[in-house]
């Protein structure tokens, strides 16, 4: 059965079962491997994508649940907020192994799109679902503040 989904601004047609998590539709059916598998239970956030701009854990979001919503993945992130976040990540030198980082970036971008000047507590709330085994948390926080400043300067 063919299902149409909107991914990064383009319509894709997939044959996956309706109950297939979007994580596997992306990685497996579409070979878009930027979104990562970490736990399969929405505990780690490595699979974070955007649905109509809001963060979602693709490992527990089925193909059928997506419907007409616009899916954005790390591969398709664009716009001034996304660019500011990526630049801050590089400037602060956040990444270590990098596996959790697509999820971190997607969560951070969604946070800043909603709230350009988050407090530390708001950052905690938005980012606590993203695990990092390498311990990059304090640099993620610094990078979010840095991105926030550069977005403000515009």
């Amino acid at each position, binding site marked *: 059965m063919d299902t149409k989904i909107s991914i990064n601004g383009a319509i894709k047609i997939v044959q996956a079962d309706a109950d297939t998590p979007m994580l596997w539709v992306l990685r497996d059916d579409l070979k878009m491997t930027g979104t990562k598998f970490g736990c399969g239970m929405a505990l780690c956030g490595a699979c974070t994508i955007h649905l109509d701009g809001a963060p979602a854990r693709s490992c527990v979001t089925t193909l059928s649940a997506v419907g007409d919503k616009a899916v954005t993945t790390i591969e398709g992130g664009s716009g001034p907020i996304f660019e500011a976040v990526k630049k801050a990540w590089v400037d602060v030198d956040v990444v*270590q*192994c990098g596996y959790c980082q697509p999820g971190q970036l997607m969560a951070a971008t969604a946070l800043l799109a909603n709230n350009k000047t988050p407090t530390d507590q708001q950052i905690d709330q938005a980012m606590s679902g993203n695990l990092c085994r390498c311990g990059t948390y304090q640099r993620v926080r610094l990078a979010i503040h840095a991105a926030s400043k550069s977005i403000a300067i515009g």
Partner: protein
Amino acid sequence: MKKRTFLLTAIAATGALIVGWGVMPARQRLMGSSPLPLTKGDIALNGWIKLSPDGSVGLIMPRSEMGQGTHTGLAMLVAEELDCSMSQIRILPAPIDKIYGNVAGLAEGVPFRPEDQGAVARTTRWTMVKVMREMGFMMTGGSASIKDLWFPLREAAAMTKASLVNAIALNWKVAPANVKVSEGIFSAEGGKKISYGDAVTKFGAQLKPADKYELKSAAAFTVIGKPLKRLESGEKVSGKAAFGIDAVVPGMVYAAVKMAPQLRGKSTQIDASSAEKMRGVKKVLQFTGSQDATGGVAVIAEHYWLAKKALEAVKITWDVSETNSLSTAQGMNAMKAALDADTGFGFYKAGDVDAAMSSAASRIKAEYAAPNLAHAPLEPMNCTVEFKDGKATVWVATQVPDFARNAAAKVLGIEPEAVTINVAYLGGGFGRRLEIDVIAAAASIAKQMPGQAVQMIWSREEDMKHDFYRPAAVSRFEAGLDSKGEVVAWRNVSAGQNIVPQYMARNAGLPMGGPDKTSSEGAFDQAYEFPNVRVGHTAVDLSTPIGFWRGVGHSHQAFFKESFIDECAVAAKSDPYEYRMNLLKNHPRHRAVLELAATKAGWALPLAPTTDGIKKARGIALHESFGSIIVQVAEVSVTKEGSIKVHRVVCAVDCGLAVNPNLIAQQMESAVVFGLSAALYGRIDIEKGVVQQSNYHDYPILRFNETPTVETHIVPSSLPPEGIGEPGLPPIAPAVGNALFALTGKRLRNLPLTLV
């Protein structure tokens, strides 16, 4: 010491230039040489640097990047001695060859204290280095990449530059000393200029190896020592960086696996009648676990989700006999019984501990314990194997490409040379990816699907329940104190499984006898000046599959030792910082690290409570591992409900010459968070051979909102670089435990730390 012979060749076809040297004569290369990819028709070289006409500098990279920054650090060594720009460097995959073996990391396995310069210690170390160079195991581990390649890479680069300088100088009719190199450009008076790329094009074919070359002195460094940003950051931030699980091969199919719930178990019978009929399913099969690993069932399907669904429909009968009596409680009892019966192998003895103990003014005793731990890297275990026409290609995130190759070859019944290993970025290693069980399993599965690449992915649950765990340990201490409270006698015996014999047998096919230094490291090899001391370890034989976990023996021994030292300081009514300084009167290097940490942490100053008025206290811990000395001061508070909150960790580091202070700070931040997860939450419980934990909800790791701020301060040093990936981990558990004692008066002697 055999002088390295440098061999140099030009590749006419592509114009690229390979530089390398032969460490051993060809007859000693038991694994055989494989040429670098682009040396078509030329002398097969195992080299380190490839220069191209376009100006790019290829660094043949034999170490895996798992977040520790090895690609960047090693590139800096090359950029320094070549005087090229970092932007010219390209990281290229290394073929499997013994010259890429990890010598420094493995040679550390001798059971001698770092400061032991006696004849036996020196001879054993020298022999071990020779043996490890002969073995040439390509292994990323032991916090040894920079230490191991500090001279070899710099020499290769320096000789390359000197060779080009000679050719250019000849052409320009100037003395070689008058040719300057900077940012990839050679220049001389009179406006003469040529880039690396153009020099390769012009002079590559007739280049002669320089018989004289110099390594820069530290004073001349322009790259080494700078906090340069990580090379692969952009790739990882864009989502383009390929980890093992991201391998995409045309026609690839997927395998979902379920292994026996009991460690070392296997399936005996399956009913795949329903599963086989499900959409996309290609095959259902049983596979045997490699040595110490666990066997199970695999479903191969066109898509991973289809494989996973079909797996649920397979009826499996398990053989539970191997470990059905294995439990955490049984292990603990066995270790305590071993300590009751035996004082174990004595790793360090000095003076007369029995006499000094019996005549001491007072004595204190304590027993400490630590559980098994899982690695739980964020990228779950996976491996892709294509077995076609008697050859195999493997895509995997591994720390041991040569062991991986051997494992695949063995399973597939072909020669290792018929296997190509493609090493990806690792989504965390921490020692888990030193094991070949995952490759062996994938090869077993792919063998039944010849002609097609099969990507085997383990679920998080399968990963958590089929690890090679950090061994559990129990340790008993007794200290005899004099009337001033100073230690006159120190007796310590630990008990637990030995890692090295298990590890080497299953991964290298080598039986290893003798004492396993890693079982007592962190206990016997520390610098405290005890006049009478005995430190031993008694090996306990349990069936838990164990392996190397970040920090290895140091990961638990540091908690035991630094907590007990604190107990001695408390008994002596002494400040814990002063007490340690007093035990290191003859160790200026250790004292300098302690002093730096205490100063930066404001140890002597009062500590303000939290913004909510909750009291905070500090704990200090010092530990030496992998050649580096780290001191950490942790600021800790406890909530009304008894939850432990770590606010700030100040790290002082002496890791020899600091190649990249930014990478060093990243590793301190990393090790503190990794170690704190273990200190506060980490435990693996085994019942009837079944690991109870399964995912990040019951094996929690530290979250964003629980992370302390970590500050890193580096002691300047001109000694050669030492390790940095692991040394930041051992001190954090005791620093927090010691802070908790200062705060609550409760001495916690078991991990994970809990007050409830």
